[in-house]
């Protein structure tokens, strides 16, 4: 299953890209509308990019009344990414989404590096949101957590149905000439190829710690990358930064993944799930 990483695609501006996905994940929605951070908001670095968009979104009311009906017309399952500044924000939005048939799952963005975090722990937020919705609840975690497997176990105990791994990590880029921060918000979230080994480690560890379904993401740009995330323990993968340079990435990665699987004699993505954890390696056929 191939998704987009939240905030990396506007399905209403690029419906043809969204339709190439198995599910579309919205940009994170907060209780109130947010204009986002002042420019400059993006900076390319050596092996990735920084963004400091700052959760620009129309607020939950704008999403429900305007965007969601239009997104539902695309015919692609919709996951809503939910953000907030207190556990009660997450709970309120989950309650508002619960009776919406056009929402398949909810991803709790517990780790945006560009806004102030809620004071509660990830597990406390999941615990607050859980009773408010029957929908599948995925917890999106930061790879910067001190003990990520422990955090993953805690959100599992609090009722999360799955994990989204990983969000961006905080980074800084300086201007060549002035040595001042290139982003208006100074620090931003780091994504792209440089994030891949970190994301892969997060998936690998959290698969062992929880056995939960995992949407793996972080620097995936090819079918080979996708295969590695499946082998590390992901049940689905999401495309982020690659969508900026290649809007055709969903179809391309899907084809390349099928070729990678076939070359190893694997019947489907499910057969690759967790292969990195097997005691006997799955050897490439001669």
């Amino acid at each position, binding site marked *: 299953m191939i998704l987009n990483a939240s905030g990396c695609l*506007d399905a209403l501006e690029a419906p043809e890209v969204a339709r190439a996905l198995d599910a579309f994940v919205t940009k994170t929605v907060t209780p109130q509308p947010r204009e986002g951070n002042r420019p400059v908001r*993006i900076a*390319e*670095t050596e092996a990735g990019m920084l963004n400091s*968009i700052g959760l*620009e979104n129309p607020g939950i009311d704008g999403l429900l009344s305007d965007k969601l009906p239009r997104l539902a017309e695309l015919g692609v399952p919709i996951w809503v990414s939910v953000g907030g500044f207190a556990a009660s924000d997450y709970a309120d939005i989950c309650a508002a989404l619960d009776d919406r048939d056009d929402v398949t799952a909810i991803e709790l963005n517990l780790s945006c590096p560009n806004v102030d975090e809620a004071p509660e722990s990830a597990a406390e937020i999941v615990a607050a949101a859980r009773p408010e919705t029957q929908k599948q609840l995925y917890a999106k975690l930061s790879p910067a957590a001190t003990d990520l497997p422990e955090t993953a176990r805690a959100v599992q105990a609090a009722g999360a149905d799955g994990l989204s791994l990983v969000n961006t990590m905080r980074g800084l880029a300086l201007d*060549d000439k002035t040595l001042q921060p290139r982003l208006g918000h100074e620090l931003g979230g780091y994504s*792209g190829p440089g994030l891949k080994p970190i994301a892969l480690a997060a998936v690998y560890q959290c698969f062992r710690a929880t056995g939960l379904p995992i949407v793996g993401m972080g620097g995936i740009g090819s079918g080979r990358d996708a295969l590695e995330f499946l082998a590390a323990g992901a049940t689905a993968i999401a495309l982020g930064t690659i969508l900026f*340079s290649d809007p055709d990435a969903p179809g391309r990665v899907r084809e390349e993944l099928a070729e990678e699987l076939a070359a190893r004699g694997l019947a489907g993505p499910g057969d690759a799930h967790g292969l990195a954890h097997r005691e006997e390696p799955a050897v490439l056929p001669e």
Partner: protein
Amino acid sequence: MRRREALSVLANEAVGPYALLRLERGEVDPGVPGQFFMLEAPGRVLPRPMSLCQAPPGELTFLLEAVGPGTRALAAVEPGEAIHVFGPLGNGYRLDVEQPLLVGGGIGIAPFPYLSERLGSPPAILGFRSEWHAEAAALVPNATVVVEPTLVTEPLRDLATDCCKVLACGPEPMLEAVRELAPDAQLAWEAPMACGYGACYGCSVEIDGVLQRLCVAGPVLEAA
């Protein structure tokens, strides 16, 4: 209709300090002057937004100034290589204007050769920071050329205010100055972009008092 395609490099020619990158057109639509394309910058994570410079038969050309790692990579591509091009994107100039006048500064003249062709070679005022940079003015017919310390606003100010409709592209201070003199001008703006098609929200700038994505709302905007 926008599409993404790997286009072969036909030539990469020096024009003063700039590079004129000539690509095979393939099936890519040249679009409206002022629209832009995302060009793969070899070895870089993100493509770079460039407005189309010329649309001769079977070709698309882009005028570049190598100022950072992405534009340096683009200025270094050679015939025989191919780069991915995605576009046309955004909103170009409205061409239904009487008495058009093109006003451009520096690398901001990039969309003018194609724009001039589509408008029947209207008069243009082009400003550059040196005689060397001003060599690029040869790409635009019917141009009055000024070199710093003279600015494009000087000849523009000498014209009667209702003489013409200004279509401008250049650095932000130039666009702001043009806006003062020609409140009904069409101005092409610039912002760092990761995607060019509304996905990243990286190019947001303040338009009419609110932050909007320049790739979707622009890059050509009405001055007033």
